């Protein structure tokens, strides 16, 4: 019955609904029982724990805001954030799998897909019967996705897609890929590419020092015939994939708080138990400074992110506001992982404690879905009106 209690210095739980707390507690209990005990092993072996897909679906982690008519639970944005926070408290790789499925696959199909596409894909994606991935980044186009080389041509009754995508979470096991490519008029569109289409392959990328419990791959398209009904007609241009990234980045902002909470929690406990110079190391001012700064930063991030959730619920959150939260929270979490690792001393490098795994994971998170520096430039552009990307 020893349950994790959220670090809630400013009584944020009072702002949550009864149902949001119940959803959080349920997912927390599931993760503690089924995922926490195995995650270090999967991380070490660089393997994705496929057996948790069904559980993640059952606890609402795939498309939590997708309406009930398409198989989702129709929850609000703050609940989506809470779910991502709980997942990342266990592992960023697990959160990434759910983020991609929700924000980068289900979201564009829901927002920009046809009614037939919604009914065909969303219910199966919500139950995890079908898994998805999102193809935007290319080998030579990361922070500058508008320069992408992937293209498709209209061949009358179908499209032909050519190109390649890189660093794609979920790619090795995905049944569907939402792929962004340019048409003959250089306009970016989304296409739903299904596993098994001739000329489509998704080889796994090995050798990651980060997100090792999440599967990452390439997407390779060589004259892939894509049926015309697989085009997402609702929106085109770079804004379409970027709006999906807004949703995912919002989830990351919450997720990072989860990783930070886990490290802080572990550091706080360890510092009260670890005796040096005849007393717990928590007695020393330098340790207290670290711990006090950690909870301060976590609390600031919680307030920032909760307000962002309210704005998302009202449809008023701007991309720049989301960038600020993603950038702030991931950096906050990374700093806390590093400080927590130090508080654990030598034990901090062992896999008996999670801080170094979180730290390594966050090195990806600080880079993907808009690098730390690009998000700073988005804020810079927002406040000055001058883009500084080129």
């Amino acid at each position, binding site marked *: 019955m020893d349950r994790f209690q959220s670090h809630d210095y400013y009584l944020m739980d009072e702002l949550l609904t009864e149902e949001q707390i119940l959803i959080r507690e*349920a997912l927390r209990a599931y993760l503690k029982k089924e995922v926490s005990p195995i995650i270090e092993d999967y991380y070490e072996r660089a393997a994705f724990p496929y057996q948790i897909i069904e559980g993640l679906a059952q*606890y609402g982690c795939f498309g939590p805001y997708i309406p009930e008519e398409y198989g989702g639970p129709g929850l609000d944005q703050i609940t989506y954030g809470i779910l991502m926070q709980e997942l990342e408290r266990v592992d960023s790789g697990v959160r990434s799998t759910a983020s991609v499925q929700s924000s980068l696959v289900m979201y564009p199909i829901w927002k920009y897909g046809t009614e037939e596409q919604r009914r065909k894909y969303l219910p199966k994606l919500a139950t995890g019967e079908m898994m998805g991935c999102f193809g935007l980044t290319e080998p030579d186009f990361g922070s500058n996705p508008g320069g992408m080389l992937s293209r498709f041509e209209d061949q009358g009754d179908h499209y032909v897609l050519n190109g390649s995508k890189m660093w794609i979470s979920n790619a090795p096991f995905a049944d569907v890929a939402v792929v962004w490519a340019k048409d003959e008029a250089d306009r970016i569109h989304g296409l739903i590419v299904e596993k098994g289409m001739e000329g489509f392959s998704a080889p796994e990328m090995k050798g990651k020092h980060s997100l090792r419990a999440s599967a990452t791959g390439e997407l390779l398209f060589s004259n892939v015939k894509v049926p015309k009904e697989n085009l997402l007609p609702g929106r085109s241009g770079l804004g379409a994939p970027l709006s999906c990234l807004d949703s995912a980045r919002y989830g990351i902002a919450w997720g990072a708080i989860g990783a930070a909470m886990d490290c802080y929690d572990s550091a706080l406990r360890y510092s009260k138990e670890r005796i040096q110079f005849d007393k717990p190391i928590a007695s020393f001012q330098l340790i207290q400074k670290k711990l006090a700064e950690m909870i301060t930063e976590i609390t600031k991030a919680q307030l920032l992110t909760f307000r962002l959730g309210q704005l998302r619920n009202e449809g008023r959150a701007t991309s720049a506001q989301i960038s600020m939260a993603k950038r702030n929270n991931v950096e906050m979490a990374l700093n806390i992982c590093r400080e927590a690792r130090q508080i654990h001393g030598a034990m901090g490098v062992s896999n008996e404690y999670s801080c170094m795994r979180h730290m390594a994971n966050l090195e990806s998170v600080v880079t993907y879905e808009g690098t730390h520096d690009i998000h700073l430039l988005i804020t810079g552009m927002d406040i000055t009106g001058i883009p500084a990307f080129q």
Partner: protein
Amino acid sequence: MKILVAISKVPDSTSKISFKDNNTQFDEAGIQFIVNPYDEWYALVRALELKENLGGAVTTITVGEANADPVIRKALAIGADDAVRIDAEPVDALFTANQIASFARDKGYDLIMFGKETINYNGSQVGAMAAGLLDLPYVSNASSLEVSGSSARLERDIQGGSQVIDVDLPAVISASKGMAEQRIPNMKGIMSARKKKLEVVAPIEAPRHTEVLSYSLPEAKSEVKLIDPDNPTELIELLHKEAKVI
């Protein structure tokens, strides 16, 4: 099978406990409440299993004020069909048992199930009192429960062994560890709980025979001194001079 399960609201076991009003009231500020684990993990889940196997319905009953609704909603999310809340503070065991007995009387429940105790006050009284008030048989601390026809077979852990008891239904029982496995409410359950009925019923007049005079926390544990096993002289000296036991 028509089953009534009593559900209590208790502080999470990791809560920091404090008192107010000159140590006469438990201070609920900042406390996270949960469903009493014996009610949830064992009584409720076993009731649901019986319903799944034999058909019927599971209703939960709680004596509590509106702040008990979140834990009742969780019981509905786990799978209870509907819930009743008797709108009164459960301050006295006989008062609480009277509320439950009054509601259950004439409703035709085959089983009325309680956790063996609540983890806050550990009274273990309400189930037995309710059985007495309803003039029904009562089996406490059951670690397994099987129903066959109009009787139930229960197993109780006793000192050094176990005891098997058959009881005619309807009956009142209290559940201990082992009767079922915890179920975590999934999203489907949480969503369906939104639409389930939570009926609020006014309490009946009932006597209160007890009054809590004061609470106190256990004394803080004293520090542990570790002594090197190669230094028995120090141990003897400490036992003699500090502990004064030899």
